[in-house]
C-alpha cells in the first residue's frame, strides 16, 4: 500500500472545516465555522474551487451528497438544512428546510437519495423529503442528543449515535428499533456502515472505535490508537479498510480483518474533523480545524 499526501488546500474555509463529502463525480463538498458550503472539483492533482454557497446564519455542522452525486445537503447550527444542486452549482429549487433549533445536527442521505435524516437533541431522528422538503415520519426519541446519523448502503438500516455513547440501529422499512448498543459511555460523533451493510463502526470521545455486527448487534472488536475524540469514520469502498480522524490531529487507516493500523497520517497541525473516500477508494480527503484540506493517495 502507498500512503502519501498528494494535495493540500490551505484556507479552504475561513476557519474550521467540520465536514466533507466526496461525490461520485469527483466533487468535494466542505462546510464549517464560516457558515459557507463550498464545492471543489478534484482534478487528479488538486482541488479547484467551484462554488461557495452562503445560505446559513450560523456554522455548517455537516454536509452530505446523495449517491448519484447530484444534490448536496448541509446542516447548520441555526437549525436549518440547505440543499444544493451540484449540477448547476446553485441552491436547489427546494431551498432551505427549517428543521427548528436543535432538531438537526449531522445529515445523511438515504441510499436511494430520496430523503435525508438528521438527529435531534431528544435522541430523535427527523427525516425530510429531498424533493419537497416535507417532513416524513422520523424515528422516535430514544434518549440523548443524536450527534451522528448514518444510513446503511442497502437502505435497510439507519443508525444514530448519541451524546451518552448509546448507538441505536433502526429498521427503516418497519420503522422499528433493532438494537440499542451500549457501545460507549461518551459522545458518539462518528458512524460508518460497511459497503455490504453488515458491519457498523462507531467512534466516540473515549478515543475508541468499535466494530459491531449489524444483524445481531454484538460488538466484534475495539480499535484503539487515537489519543482523543474520534471525529469521523469512513469505510473504503472495497470494505477492506476504513479510516478514522481525531482531534489528536491524526488520520489513521485500519485493516478491518487483521485489526492492524495500516498507516497514520500525521500531516495535519490541528484537530481533524472530517474524512471522505472518493468513489474508487484510492483517494481520501481530510479536513481540519485550521481550514486545511489534505488529499491522500491510499492504494
Amino acid at each position: 500500500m502507498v500512503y502519501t499526501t498528494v494535495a493540500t488546500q490551505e484556507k479552504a474555509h475561513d476557519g474550521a472545516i467540520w465536514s466533507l463529502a466526496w461525490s461520485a463525480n469527483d466533487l468535494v463538498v466542505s462546510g464549517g465555522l464560516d457558515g459557507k458550503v463550498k464545492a471543489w472539483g478534484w482534478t487528479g492533482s488538486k482541488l479547484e474551487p467551484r462554488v461557495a454557497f452562503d445560505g446559513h446564519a450560523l456554522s455548517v455542522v455537516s454536509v452530505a451528497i446523495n449517491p448519484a452525486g447530484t444534490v448536496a445537503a448541509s446542516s447548520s447550527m441555526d437549525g436549518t438544512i440547505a440543499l444544493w444542486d451540484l449540477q448547476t452549482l446553485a441552491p436547489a429549487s427546494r431551498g432551505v428546510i427549517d428543521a427548528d433549533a436543535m432538531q438537526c445536527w449531522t445529515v445523511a442521505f438515504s441510499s436511494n437519495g430520496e430523503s435525508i435524516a438528521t438527529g435531534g437533541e431528544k435522541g430523535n431522528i427527523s427525516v425530510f423529503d429531498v424533493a419537497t422538503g416535507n417532513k416524513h415520519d422520523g424515528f422516535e426519541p430514544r434518549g440523548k442528543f443524536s450527534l451522528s446519523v448514518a444510513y446503511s448502503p442497502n437502505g435497510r438500516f439507519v443508525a444514530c449515535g448519541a451524546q451518552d455513547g448509546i448507538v441505536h440501529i433502526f429498521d427503516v422499512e418497519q420503522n422499528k428499533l433493532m438494537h440499542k448498543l451500549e457501545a460507549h459511555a461518551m459522545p458518539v460523533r462518528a458512524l460508518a456502515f460497511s459497503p455490504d451493510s453488515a458491519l457498523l463502526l462507531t467512534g466516540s470521545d473515549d478515543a475508541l472505535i468499535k466494530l459491531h455486527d449489524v444483524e445481531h448487534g454484538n460488538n466484534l472488536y475495539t480499535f484503539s490508537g487515537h489519543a482523543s475524540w474520534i471525529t469521523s469514520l469512513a469505510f473504503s469502498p472495497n470494505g477492506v479498510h476504513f479510516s478514522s480522524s481525531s482531534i489528536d490531529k491524526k488520520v489513521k487507516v485500519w485493516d478491518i480483518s487483521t485489526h492492524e493500523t495500516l498507516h497514520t497520517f500525521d500531516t495535519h497541525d490541528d484537530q481533524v474533523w472530517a474524512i471522505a473516500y472518493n468513489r474508487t477508494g484510492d483517494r481520501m480527503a481530510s479536513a481540519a480545524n485550521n481550514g486545511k484540506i489534505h488529499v491522500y493517495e491510499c492504494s
Partner: protein
Amino acid sequence: MQAPAPTSIEIPLRGSNEVLEIEFAELPDLGDLLGILKQEKARLRIWLVLAIQYYNQKMPEACSQLLTAASDAASTEPEYADAIQDRLSILNALGAFYLQQAVEERDRETREALLQKATSQFNRADTLDVHGTLNMVGKGMLFLLRNNYERAATQFRYVTAQNPAHIPALMGQACAAYNLKQFKEALGLYRRVLRINPTGSAAIVRYGIGVCLFKLKDLERAQLAFKRVLELVPDHLEACVALATIEFNTGVDKEASATEMLTGRSAATVANLAPAQISEQASILQQAAVASVTSGMQLLQQAYKISSEENRDNAMLLNHLSNYFFSYRELDKSANLALSALHRSDVDEIKAISCYLIGRKHHAAEDYDQAFQFYYQANRLWDSFALPQFGLGQLYIKKGDIAKAAEYLEKVLVKFPDNYEASKILGSLYVTSQYSNKRQRAQQLLHKITVAQPKDVEAWIELAQLQEQTDFAAALEAYETAARLLLEADIKIAPEILNNIATLRHKLGQLDKAQDMNAAAAADVDQQIRDEEQNEMVDAQNLRSLNGLKVTIRYNRARLLEDMNNPADAEVIYRELIQEHPTLIDCYLRLAAIAKNQGRIAAAAEWVREVFAIQPHNPDAWCFVGNMHLSRYEWNLAQNKFEMLLKNNGKTNKVDPYPLIALGNIFQQSAQPVSVPKAQMDKSYVRAAEFFTKALQEDSRNIYAANGLACVMAENGFVKEAEDVFLKVRETTSESADVWTNLGHLYSSYDYTRSVKMYTNCLRKFHNDKDLDVLMHLARVHYQFKKFDACKSVLQQAFHLHPHETVIRYHLALCEEAFAEHTFAQETLHPRDVTHAIASLQVAHKIYDNLSKYPKSSRLGFTPARAAQSASRVADMLAQSAQVMRRAEAQEAERQRKAQEHEVLRKNLMERKAADEAVRQSKIAEEHARLALIAETHRKRADEAFAEFQANASAAAAAAASKKSSRGRKADTAMDDFVDDEEDSRPKKGRRSKDSGSSDESEEDAASTPSSSQGEDGGDGETAPKASKEERKRRREARKKEKRSRDKADKKSRQKRRRDDGSLEAEPRKAAREADSSDEDKGKSSSSSSRVPKRVFKSKELISDSDDDQPSSSVFRRDEDDDQDDDANTAAAPASTATFTTKARRAVESDDE
C-alpha cells in the same frame, strides 16, 4: 667524645697524703664506700663521679643512694658549706636521675612521685643559685615531661641565650619545639647540636632530625637520617619503625598513583602517553610499591627482633605489627599487639591508632558492639583520625542510624575531600534521603565520583537513581552510561536497569524505545526465572524477587500501552495482574482511571470499591473518589472525602499537600457565587487561604498551592500580588494550565490582547483546543471588548465541540442580540449591517425560544424563564428592526445624494481647473509672444525700447500682484493658484485645529471599541467635511457620552489596576453585589438563590475533559460574574470580575514503580 675516660678515682685520706684508689671496674659495696666517703669527708665531686659510675654500671639504686647521701652530707656537714658548685652538681644530678627514672616509669603514681622528687631537687638547687644552668635545664626537662612545652621552651631558650652551645639545653629546646609542632625550628636546633658536636649522641640527634624531616614531609631525607641512625645504633628501634612507616607510606602512594593512571584519573599525566606506555609506567609504579612494602616488612621484622630484647614496648612498632598481622588475617594476634601498644603508650594519637586497630579486628570478626566501642574511643582520642570515623560510619549504617553514619562520613570527607569510599557510601546514603539538600549533596558526591572514575558503574547507577526524581533526561543518560559500561565489560545488564531505562524513556515521551526496553527487561526476567526454576536447589528468595520484578515490568508495560492509546491491552494486563496478585492496588486504580476516561463512571466506582475492600484508607482511592465528586460538582461530598483523607493523613507523620489543596479549592469556590453573603464569603476565603498556606508549609514548591493562594489574593483585590505569583508559577512550570487561565482572567479587565493570548495559549497548550471553560472565558473577553465576530466564532466552536451544553447556545444568543443592539445603536447605519443584525436577531430569537422550553435545572447555566423574556425582547427588537432599516435606507439615500453632490462638485472643480489651466496656458503664450515682440523691438531700437520694456514689465507685475493681494499671500506661479483653489474647499484653519482635537477623541474611542471603528470610519470619512459646526458639536457630545457610559462599565475592573489601593476593591465588589440583588428584586424571580444575572456571561458548570493527560487529576473550577450592567438600553458589555480557577493534581498514575 670527651677525653679518654678515667678508669679509676682517688679518694684523698684525711690527715695524710695517701689516697684510696677505687677502680671503676671493681666498685666496692655501697655501704663500705659510703662509710669511707663520709669518714674522709671526700669532696662532693668524688661522690658524684662514683654515683655516675654506679649508674653507668646499671646500679641505679646505688647511684641514687649515693647521691642522696651526698646531698644529705652537703646540707649537714659544715665542710661542704662553701662548695656551692659541687652541691649544685649533686642536686642537679639527683634531679636528673629522678627525671630519668620518671621517663622510664610506666606507673603513673610512681612516676608522679619521681617527678616530685626531681622537682624538689631542682628547687633546692634554685635556692643555691637561681641562675644555675643545670637546674634550669633540669626544670626544662621537668616541663617537657609534664607536657608543658611552652614553659619548657622558655627555660631552654634562657639557657641557650646565655650559652648557645649548651647541648642539653639545645636538645631540650628542639624537643619542646617539635612538640609545639614547630618542626622547622626543631630541625634547626638539632642541626645546631650536630654542628657543635658531630659525634656525641649522634644517633639521638639524627633521629630528631629524621622525625622533623618526616613531619615536614621530606621523606627522602628523613629516610637518610633514620638510616644513619641505624648505622650508628643498629638496634635503634624507633628509627627502624620510622623507616618501615616511610616504606609503607611510599608503597601506598605508588599504588595509588598506579591506579590513578590506569583508571584515567590523572588525565594530565596520561594525556600524551599511549595506552601501552601508561600500563608500562603503572606496572613500574606497582612494582616499586611492592618493593617498598616488602622492605617495610623487612624493617618491621628487624624492629621486632630488636624489640624482643627490650620487651617490645614501642607502641608504634606494636601498632605496625598489629596492622601487619591484620593484613594476613591473624586477627587475634593483631588485636593483642594493638592492645599491648595501647597499654604502653601515653600518646593519644598512638593510642587512637591502637584503639582503631582493635576496633577493626572486632569489626572484621563481626563483633560490632566491641568494634563500635574501640572506634569510638579512637575517635575521642584523636578527632581528626579519619579511619575510625569511617569505621563508625560503617557501623552506624549497620545500626540503621543513617544520620549518625552520614555525620561521621562527612567528617572523613572534611579531611579527605576526594576519598572515594567515603564519597560513595555517603552518596548512597543520601540517595534515598527525604531531604532535598541531602539528595543534592548525594548528587554532588556521585557526580564527583563519576568524573573522577568515569567507569564506576555503581556510581552511575546511583546517580541515575537520584536523578530519576528530578531530571529524567540526566537520569536516562546516567543509566545508559552504566549500561554501556556493563556492555563493554561484557556483563549482563540487570533487568532492573533495563526496566528503569524503559520507564525513563516513557516519561520522556520516547514511547517506542520505552516499549523495546520494557520488552527486553521482560524477556530477561523470564529467562532468569526459567533458569532459577531449573536449578536443583531453587533459591526461593531470588525467585520471589524475580517474580516481583516481573510484575513491575508488566505493570509498566500496561502504563506504556495506556499512553500509546491502547487502553484495551493495558486493561488486559491489569486484569491479569489482579488475577495473580489480588492486592495490587495500583492496578485497580489504573482500571478505574481508564474507565473514568472512557466515561464509564459506574465501572470506575466499582474498581475503587475493590480498593477500599483491600485498603479502607488508601489515600489514592479516596482522592480518586473526591475528584469524581468534584468533577460532578458535588462539593459537599468531595469535601467529606478530602477531610477524611486529611484525617487519615494526620495519623501518619507526613502530610500530603493534595487534600489540603483540594479543600482549599473547594472553599475558594464556595466563596465565589454572588449569592454567598459577604461574611460567609470572607470566611470561606480565609479557610481556603489557610489550606493553601498549610499545603505550602508542607511543600514550599507546590505550584498548585501557590496558584490557589494567588487566586484568593486576586479575588480579594490584591491583583498585582496575584499576578506576580501567577507569573512566577508560570515560570516554574510549563505544565499548569490554570495559571494561564488565571492570567487571562487578570488581564481580561483591562488588556484585551493579553487576555486573549493567555486563554488561547492555554487552550492550545493544554486542552487540545477543546476545554469548554477556557473557551467560555475567551468568548467572554471578546464580548467584553465588543469583538462580536470573534466571540461568535469562539462560541460556535464551543457549540460544535459540546452541542449538548445549553449554556453555550444561551451565550451565543446573547452575543447575537448584543451585536444587533450594537449595530442598531450606531449613528451611521448601513442597510447591509442592519440586514446582518436582523439575521442575528432571528438566530437569537430561535435559540432563546428553544431554550425557554427547557425544564428548569441548575445544570442549564441559565433560567428558561429568562430565555423566554429574552425571546420576547428580541421579538420586539425584530419588530422595530423595520424602522431601523428605514433609517438606514434613508441614511444610505442621503449618503448617496451627498456622494452625488460631491461628485458634481468634484466635476465642477475639475472643469474649473481645466478652464484655469487653459487660461494660464494662454497667458503664458501671450507673455511669450509679448516678450518676443519686445526682444524684436529691442534689437531694433535699443535705447527707447529698453525704457518701454521696463514700463511694460512693471505694469504686468503690478497687475499680477493686485490679483493675489486679496488673499494676503504672495504667489508667483500658476501652480500656486491650483493649490489655492484646492484649499478653498477645505475647512478653514481655525476649524481644522478644533477638528483634529475631536478626531483624537474619536481615535481614543476607536481604540477602546475597535469593533465599532470599522463600521464608523467609512461613514465619518464621507460625511465629516460637510457637517455643520453645530452638528459636529452635537455628535461629539454624544460620542463623549457614549464613551463615558462605556468607561463606566469598565470602571470597576479598571480600578483593579490601582495596585496599592486594595481597600477600594471591597467597594466595587459590594456595589456590584448590591446591584445584583436589586436586579434580582426587579426581576420576576425573587429567589435569591438564582445565580444567573440577566445579561451576564456565566460559564457552564460541568466539565467533561475526559481526554486529560492525567486522567485522575481533578479540574474543578466554577465561574461567576459579579459585576454587571443590566440596563437593557445600553449596549455596554457587562464587565465581569475574572474568576480564578485552581487545580490540584495527584499522581495516582505517575508512581510507576
